[in-house]
C-alpha cells in the first residue's frame, strides 16, 4: 500500500513538473475547444450541437498525447526493471500508474469542463452533465490506453502505431460518452442508459487494463 | 434465374468476393514460391546441414 501510494505520488509529481502543471492540461483543452469553431465554421447552433463531441474529442486527444510515454519513460531510465522486480504485483503497479495519470491529466479536464461549456454555448445543466460523463468516462480512456502504452514498450515502437492500436478500443467509450452527453442536452434519448454503459466500460477497463498491461510488460522485459 | 431490379448489387457482391478470394490465393502461392526460392539460395550458399537442423528448432 505504501508502495502504491508512493508510486501515485511520484507519478503525479513528475507529470505536473514535466507537463507544466495541471493548468497546462486545462489550457490544452481550451485550445482544442477554441480550435473547433475554426475547423467547423462559425455556426452557433451547429457548435452547440457538436459541443459534447468537441469536449470528448479533446479528452481523447489529451490522453493519446500523454499516454504513449506512460511506461516508455520508465523503461528507458531503467525504473521498469526495478518495478518488475519489486514485491508489489506488477498489475497493481500498473493500475497505480494509470490512476496517477488520470489524476494528473484527466481530472483537470473534468473540472474545467463547466467553464469551457460556456464557450460552446452550453447551458449550466448540460455542462454539468457533460462533466459527469467525462468524470466516469475518461478513466476508461486511460485504462484502455494503458494497454497500448505497455505494448509500445514490448514492441520498442512508438508514434502512431500505438494510436492505431488504441483508437479502436476507445471508440465504444467515445460513442457512449457522446451519446450520454448528447442525451443530457437534447433529451429525446434517455441519459441513464448510455451513462450506465459508460460506467460499465470504465469498470471493465479498470479490471482488464492493468492485467493486459502487466502481461504485456512481463513479456517485453529484456 | 432473374435477379430483379437489384441485379447489379448481387453481381457486385459475388464479384468482390471472388476478387478478394483470388487475391488471397495468389498471395499465398506467390509467398510460397518466394520463400522456397530463398531457401534454395541459402542452400546453394552452403549453409550447412547441421545448421539447418538448428534453424528448424529455432523457428
Amino acid at each position, binding site marked *: 500500500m505504501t508502495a502504491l501510494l508512493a508510486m501515485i505520488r511520484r507519478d503525479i509529481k513528475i507529470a505536473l513538473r514535466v507537463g507544466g502543471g495541471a493548468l497546462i492540461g486545462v489550457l490544452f483543452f481550451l485550445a482544442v475547444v477554441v480550435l473547433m469553431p475554426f475547423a467547423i465554421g462559425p455556426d452557433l447552433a451547429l457548435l452547440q450541437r457538436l459541443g459534447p463531441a468537441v469536449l470528448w474529442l479533446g479528452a481523447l486527444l489529451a490522453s493519446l498525447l500523454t499516454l504513449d510515454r506512460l511506461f516508455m519513460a520508465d523503461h528507458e531510465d531503467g525504473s521498469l526493471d526495478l518495478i518488475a522486480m519489486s514485491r508489489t504485483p506488477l498489475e497493481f503497479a500498473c493500475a497505480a500508474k494509470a490512476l496517477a495519470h488520470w489524476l494528473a491529466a484527466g481530472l483537470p479536464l473534468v473540472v474545467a469542463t463547466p467553464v469551457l461549456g460556456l464557450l460552446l454555448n452550453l447551458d449550466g445543466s448540460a455542462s454539468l452533465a457533460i462533466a459527469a460523463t467525462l468524470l466516469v468516462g475518461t478513466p476508461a480512456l486511460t485504462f484502455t490506453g494503458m*494497454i497500448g502504452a505497455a*505494448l509500445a514498450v*514490448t*514492441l*520498442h*515502437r512508438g508514434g502512431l*502505431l500505438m494510436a*492505431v*492500436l488504441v*483508437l*479502436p*478500443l476507445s*471508440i*465504444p467509450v467515445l*460513442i457512449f460518452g457522446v451519446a450520454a452527453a448528447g442525451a443530457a442536452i437534447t433529451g429525446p434519448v434517455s441519459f441513464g442508459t448510455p451513462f450506465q454503459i459508460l460506467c460499465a466500460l470504465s469498470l*471493465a477497463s479498470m479490471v*482488464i487494463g492493468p492485467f*493486459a498491461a502487466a*502481461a*504485456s510488460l512481463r*513479456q*517485453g522485459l529484456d | *434465374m*432473374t*435477379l*430483379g*431490379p*437489384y*441485379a447489379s*448489387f*448481387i453481381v*457486385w*457482391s*459475388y464479384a*468482390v*468476393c471472388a476478387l*478478394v*478470394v483470388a*487475391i*488471397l*490465393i495468389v*498471395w*499465398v*502461392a506467390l*509467398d*510460397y514460391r518466394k*520463400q*522456397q526460392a*530463398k*531457401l534454395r539460395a*541459402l542452400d546453394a*550458399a552452403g*549453409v550447412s546441414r547441421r*545448421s*539447418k537442423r*538448428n*534453424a*528448424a528448432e*529455432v*523457428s
Partner: protein
Amino acid sequence: MTLIDLANPTRFLKLTERLLPWLAGLTALLLAIGLAQSALAPDDYQQGATVKIMFVHVPNAWLSMFVWGIMSLSALGTLVWRHPLADVAAKAAAPIGAAFTFLALVTGSLWGRPMWGTYWEWDARLTSMLILFLMYLGLIALWRAVEDPSRAARAAAIFTLVGAINLPIIKFSVDWWNTLHQPASVLRVGGPALDKSFLIPLLVMAIAFSLLFITLHLAAMRNEILRRRVRALQMLQAAEQQGQLRSGAL
C-alpha cells in the same frame, strides 16, 4: 485447434504437404455446389433476389468472427504454452480474417442499399464490425512493424485477447440495441428460423468458406514457417561469417 498437437514444425510441413491438395479440391467442389444451389434458390417474398447476397454475406460475417476466435486460442497457446506453432497460426490467420471482415462489410453494404436505402448506417452491429476490421488492420500492422517474431507474437497475443471482447459485442449487438440489422435467425436458441430452401445453400456455403479458410490458413502457416526458417538460416549464415571474421582477426 487441429494443429496444436503437431508440435513439430517439420512434421507439420510434411502433413500439410499431403493434406493441402485434398483440401483445395474439396473446397472447390463444395464452393461449386454452394454456388449452384444459391443460384437455384428461390426469391424471398420480402427481399426478392437480393437474398442471394446472404449466401456470401453471412459466411463471411461468421468467419470474420471465427478467425478472431482462432487467433485468440492461438494467443493462449503463445502466452501459456509458448508454442511457436501458435505464433505461426496467429500470424497467418490475421490477413485472411481481415479479408473476410472486409467482404462481410462490403457485401453487407451492397445488401443494405436495396434493403435499408443506404450503404452505411452507424448502428451497433455495423460499427462493431468496422471496429473488428480496424483491429485486424492494427494487428497486421503490429506483426509487420516488429522483426523479432517471438516478441511480436507475444504483443499480438495480448492485443488479440483484449480485442476478443468485441466478439460478443458483435454477436449480441442486435439483441442489446435495437438496430437496423436483423437479429440472429440461424445461430440462435430454439433452432434456425429460416426456410429450408435458404438454409441449405447457406450452410453449404458456410462449410465451403470454412474449408477455404482452413486451406488458406494451412498454406499461409506453411509459408510463415518457411519464412522463419529462412530468417534463422540467414542469422546462422551471418554467425558463420562472424566466426570466420573472428578467426581471421585474431
